């Protein structure tokens, strides 16, 4: 087929065109060439532009979530409000309102009180309670704490909630804005770095929600996934590359592995649900089950890259070792494997990055649960970074849009870090033969 398709021959040779016609033809051909070049460049620009748009969207949406508006208030802990003997029975909501009243002066009606207390997070009562519990000697005086502002006021402070919108279309009332401005004028409103994003677990309130649970969950997931897929992957790659005879059986295994690598991830989730959870009774929503599923999923990746790394070791190494009297196993274990290690680790890290970003199978395992504390082990219910992103993306509160983007930035940061290690290993440790 190749000889017949070489261009520009037949017609041009058979009847020599006049120089004018030839010039026109050449012009057309060059124009076609330019068109193709422009099309190629456009395609690349489109792809890169989309990547740019994606990153820009995420970063511009996510950056505000890295600061969190706080309101510093002095909460009165008078003896009539707080009973040091029985902190649980205290009406902490009243203490919080007292703090707001202390800053803004008494407000009249209960309805107004409620509007007022909406300025700071609903969890303020628990923050104050925990602070007092940690330091009970404060009872009788007052305590000064910086508590997160509620999501709408965080937005107001960051300019996301616009003041010139009619009051009915705004999530904050004019009265609340006036109070907030008063607090602001007293220098009580600050916007420090949002450590809560990393150290708080999930919450229904955007201002309190953080990634601690998701990051711990993802860590346990990757731990389980690595402990299973790394040894198993290396063992099967060594067998297939170094020991396996070339027969139909090993061909079948090879086709199988390539197939598994291209299998949709959700199918692994179905497998995990039907086998690990239904048959073996593994706990739902737990990193153990999720990690098992992910390890099956990344196994083909690790096998394929390990085989490539083993293949890259020149036969001369093997022959030299065999010539010195080493057994086949000694050759592989003591010479080939150590030399291939950088390549194997690179492939493993890439596989782990793939596992870190995977969502669909984890949803079927139930790792999109609402869990308000970080998991203590691989058997506790937990979320993971990607499923947390999925949960937050589904949440209706406005503040979660920005939190989701921030969570994506954290996830991309981890992925970037892992890939950077892989690239470093590849460039520094891998030998060229």
């Amino acid at each position: 087929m190749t000889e017949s398709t070489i261009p520009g021959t037949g017609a041009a040779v058979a009847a020599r065109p006049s120089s004018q016609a030839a010039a026109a033809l050449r012009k057309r051909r060059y124009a076609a060439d330019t068109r193709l070049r422009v099309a190629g460049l456009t395609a690349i620009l489109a792809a890169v532009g989309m990547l740019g748009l994606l990153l820009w969207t995420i970063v511009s949406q996510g950056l505000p979530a890295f600061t969190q508006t706080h309101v510093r208030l002095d909460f009165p802990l008078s003896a009539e409000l707080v009973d040091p003997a029985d902190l649980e029975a205290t009406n902490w909501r009243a203490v919080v309102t007292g703090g707001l009243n202390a800053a803004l002066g008494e407000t009249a009606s209960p309805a107004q009180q409620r509007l007022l207390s909406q300025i700071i997070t609903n969890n303020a009562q628990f923050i104050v309670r925990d602070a007092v519990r940690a330091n009970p000697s404060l009872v009788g005086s007052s305590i000064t704490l910086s508590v997160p502002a509620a999501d709408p006021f965080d937005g107001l402070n960051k300019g996301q909630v616009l003041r010139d919108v009619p009051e009915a279309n705004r999530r904050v009332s004019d009265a609340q804005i006036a109070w907030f401005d008063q607090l602001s004028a007293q220098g009580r409103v600050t916007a420090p770095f949002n450590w809560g994003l990393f150290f708080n677990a999930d919450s229904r309130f955007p201002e309190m929600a953080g990634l601690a649970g998701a990051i711990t969950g993802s860590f346990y997931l990757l731990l389980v996934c690595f402990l299973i897929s790394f040894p198993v992957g290396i063992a099967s790659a060594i067998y297939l590359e170094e020991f396996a005879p070339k027969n139909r059986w090993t061909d079948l295994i090879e086709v199988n592995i390539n197939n598994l690598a291209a299998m949709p991830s959700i199918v692994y989730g179905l497998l995990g649900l039907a086998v690990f959870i239904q048959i073996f009774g593994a706990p739902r929503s737990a990193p153990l089950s999720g990690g098992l599923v992910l390890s099956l999923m990344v196994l083909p990746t690790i096998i394929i890259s390990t085989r490539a790394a083993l293949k890259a070791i020149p036969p001369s190494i093997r022959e030299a070792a065999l010539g010195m009297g080493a057994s086949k196993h000694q050759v592989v274990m003591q010479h080939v494997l150590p030399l291939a290690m950088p390549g194997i680790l690179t492939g493993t890290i890439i596989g782990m990055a793939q596992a870190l970003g995977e969502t669909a199978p984890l949803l079927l395992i139930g790792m999109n649960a609402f869990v308000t504390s970080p998991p203590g082990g691989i058997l506790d219910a937990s979320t993971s970074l990607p499923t947390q992103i999925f949960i937050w993306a589904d949440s209706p509160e406005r503040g979660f849009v920005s939190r989701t983007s921030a969570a994506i930035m954290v996830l991309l940061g981890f992925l970037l870090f892992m890939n950077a290690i892989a690239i470093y290993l590849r460039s520094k440790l891998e030998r060229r033969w």
Partner: protein
Amino acid sequence: MAGYLFLAIVVLATAAYFVGTMSGRRLVPAGGEKVHSLPGYHGLLGAFAVFIPAAIVLLLWLAFQSRIVDIFLVNSLPSTLIEGRGTGQMSLLLSEIRNVAAGVVFSEPVPDVVAAAERLKSFREVSEWIIAALVAVLMLGGFLWVRSQIAVRFRARNAVERVLSGVMVACAGLAILITLAIFFSLLYEAIRFFSVVPPLEFFFGLRWEPQIAIRADQVAGAGAFGAIPVFVGTFLVAAVAMAVATPIGLFTAIYLVEYSSDRFRSIIKPTLEILAGVPTVVYGFFAVLTVAPAIREAGGLIGIVMSPNSALAAGLVMGIMLIPIIASLSDDALRAVPRTMRDGSLAMGATPGETVMKVLVPAAIPGIMGGVLLATSIAIGETMIVAMAAGLIASLTINPLDSVTTVTVQIITLLTGDTEFDSPKTLAAFGLGLVLFLMTLILNVIALTIVKRFREQYD
């Protein structure tokens, strides 16, 4: 418990390694015969003998103990408690007993349940003692066996290598086991589904309304499980994605192969790899946050009313995700065409564009087709983008501006939340999963065969 046992196994296996190494070292060559194996091999064999049988038994116990304990528990329940319960209520009862045993009590349990919880605790205790004893005996036996074998002529190295080979074969066989496990678990649940919903209705029905009542007293539709609208929606989204990804990916590859400078290529290739490395949940969020509103607004400008979760938005974003796959596979295919053919074409006076379009692309067509098929299979199986950006309602349409649903979206929505394993609603997900598995399997096999054939052609 299992954790401590495993720790004990690891510690004792390490100890066995050192003991074995010591005894190996103490062997004295006798009668002009050298010691066959290095001391380390005696140690390794000891460690294997302690570790492998005990670990296997422990794993089997972990996998099956809860089922076996359940069987004992169910058999011990008084008939008054069991009578008139279906499978669903039975599993409710079992989980209540488990909760009581774990000390989680929501409402005052009946005395029978409390007694059953006590029995459950004692069953568990007995099973733990049995496994601990079994593991201890296995470890001791393995250790003593290796001790008795250690001798000057003992082929410890050969034994270790045989064990290692066995482990490696088992690991390699795991790949086949996974495929079989996927296939049979899907098939098993799908058969249960088809015993409720006839296959004819599933494969040819035109209405998909899986929201049926879970409890008898709930008000809900009767449910319809005709999957044609779901399949059509899947292909529609995949078609939009491929319509975006194929030209962009192919032209990118053509430019990189024929026109680009090495420097430009060395920048663009990693950039495209970033596009391939972005998790799909991020693409899904991007689709919801940016692309879908933009498309809707654009449609509004020219006076077309669009659904907020149109197939177009999901397909477009999925297409962006697929660009690097098509680009890199086409790039490989174009590069695999022998240099002589390219040089020959250029030497005959063809422009670079003519060389690509009339020599390289025709020669690389199998490889490019393989890449396109592989990308199609990914598009069909992709979950997160459609789960976030496509709709939930199955409507039979091929208009990309409408909202459609896909196989993967339905699997996710049917199986997240409370799953009860004997309702046709959750079993339907496995029916869809089986279809998805077979579809992608066939596409993958074709694609991989084409790519492999093509590679061999020029190697």
